[in-house]
């Protein structure tokens, strides 16, 4: 009898179309980083000049570094808070929590950016990298919470109850029973939070201080003149770097990331 082991051919085909949809534009992004033209519009010729320009462009590199720093810290904090929120939405649902989690996703970014700026100015909080990170955490929590909650849906509480009955503290019950079960949701949420943070423009524009530049801020300011292939170069390198960091992290702490 044929066993349904592993994905079938039809599934591979459909998924393959999905990956193609994702990667054709990306292939263009990477290939055009070698394009011998200032514009990201058509292929002219091959050159490494843009990478050379990038390595001499301390502003762009600093902006990329800031983006990575903010994205890493914001996604860590929002994953923790978001996981807590997701668990709370499942176990102790309240309308307040649902609203606080969903509304930042619904609210237009420009309103959130302006209101956070007014808020920071009102409480005399110096604008800088920290203000940006705090803003990012606010809108990322919801994404993590919703995914974790969906993961928890239909979960058998009897496992956790059994652990508690055997004398486990609530923290240990969470750490050794619940957390491994929801880990794919937590990872998915963390990945989304990181992605949202590293590419955010509108909220970052309003909450960044004078002299604080993240990569999207730097790049968007070029929009009226030309978004040169230097941007393709820095994006390609940033993707590689982030991928490498994640692979290293997963090798170093396999027990954390594996969903066993």
């Amino acid at each position, binding site marked *: 009898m044929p066993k349904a082991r592993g994905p079938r051919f039809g599934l591979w085909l459909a998924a393959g179309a999905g990956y193609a949809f994702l990667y054709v534009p990306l292939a263009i992004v990477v290939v055009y980083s070698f394009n011998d033209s200032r514009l990201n519009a058509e292929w002219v010729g091959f050159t490494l000049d843009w990478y050379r320009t990038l390595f001499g462009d301390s502003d762009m590199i600093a902006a990329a570094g800031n983006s990575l720093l903010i994205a890493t810290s914001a996604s860590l904090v929002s994953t923790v808070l978001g996981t807590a929120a997701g668990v709370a939405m499942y176990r102790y649902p309240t309308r307040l929590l649902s609203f606080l989690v969903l509304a930042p996703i619904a609210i237009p970014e420009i309103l959130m950016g302006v209101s956070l700026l007014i808020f920071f100015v009102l409480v005399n909080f110096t604008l800088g990298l920290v203000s940006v990170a705090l803003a990012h955490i606010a809108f990322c929590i919801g994404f993590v919470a919703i995914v974790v909650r969906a993961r928890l849906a239909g979960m058998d509480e009897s496992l956790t109850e059994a652990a508690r009955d055997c004398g486990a503290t609530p923290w240990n019950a969470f750490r050794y029973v619940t957390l491994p079960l929801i880990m794919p949701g937590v990872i998915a949420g963390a990945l989304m939070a990181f992605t949202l943070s590293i590419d955010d423009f509108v909220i970052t524009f309003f909450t960044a201080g004078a002299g604080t530049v993240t990569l999207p801020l730097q790049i968007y300011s070029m929009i009226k*003149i*030309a978004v040169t292939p230097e941007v393709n170069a820095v994006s390609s390198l940033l993707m590689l770097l982030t991928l490498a960091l994640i692979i290293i992290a997963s090798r170093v702490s396999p027990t954390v990331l594996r969903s066993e």
Partner: protein
Amino acid sequence: MKKPVWLLAALLLAGPALAKDEFHLYNWNNYIAPETIKRFEDFCKCTVVQSYYSSNEELLAKLAAGAKGYDMLVPTANAVDALIKGKRLMPIDKSQLPNLKNIDPRYLDTPFDPGNKFSVPYAMSTTIIGYNDVKMKELGLPTDTWAVIFDPKYLEKVKGRVTVLDDENELFAAALKYLGYSANDTDEKHWKEAQALINKAKPYWAAFNASSYIKELTVGNIWLVHGYSNDIFQANLDAQAAKRPFKILQGMPKEGAVLAVDNMVIPKDAQRSDLALKFMNFMLEGKNSSELTNLIGSGNPNMDAVKYIKPEILKNPAIFPNKEVAAKLEQLRDLTAAQRRLRSRMWTEIKAGH
């Protein structure tokens, strides 16, 4: 887990106290030559920290929400108008600006800042027509009138290959000029005429676009644009570098156009207004001012800069218009809140379609 965040916060907050002389310049991207910055840093023995914005409106919104920390801004005339009326600027001590005499008096003493109490001209551009010369000749279209953007009898030859700026003030100004009114006309009847004109032309336009139209023009997907002279100048440089079989040329409409003069201003709460004034005087020197023009083909109000500017740029009538053309150029004024609201509704109606 929160500890590293607090440490980071402490370091970042303490940062400004440890920094040496810093001049925070909030400017358009690519609106100052790197050599100029370096020379200024040597001259003032300070560090220039640059931040960028890409539209006047973003700048105004950020300032209105209370952002501070900038020592100098470079807004366009109508934004300077709004900032002065909103009392956000520091008066300039003109005794520190001996080089101010280099500026062509035509650009001083503007209606929104009489006596230049708050602003000093920096660079300028015009909003005109940009076109693919081969295509326009092929189709036999004029390139010196707004009619080619607004009149369906010309538009049907370039249907789907024209873009206009996604800027309500610029597009209304062009429409008003074409209809024979002033770009700063505030008569609602005239605005309705302009709206009707735009609605009639809209089906032929490919897009309202202020961000990616230039590259489409450069590669030949778009043949005719309503755009900024600097961008069109740059587009031609890029097209030639890519060895395209056409040139991108600037067309100055005979009905007149919008002149955008960007000005150096100092925000009221600037920490280092002394450095700001030094920078202003430095940029009023002909040589320093010329570097931007040579870099991006921007117009230059500085008479002393003329001797340093490349001849081919000097000859370009869209960048350095003669007296006749200059007489038809207008700088935009800021509108009152009620006028802005009306125009915004008309603009939304245009963009909502049917």
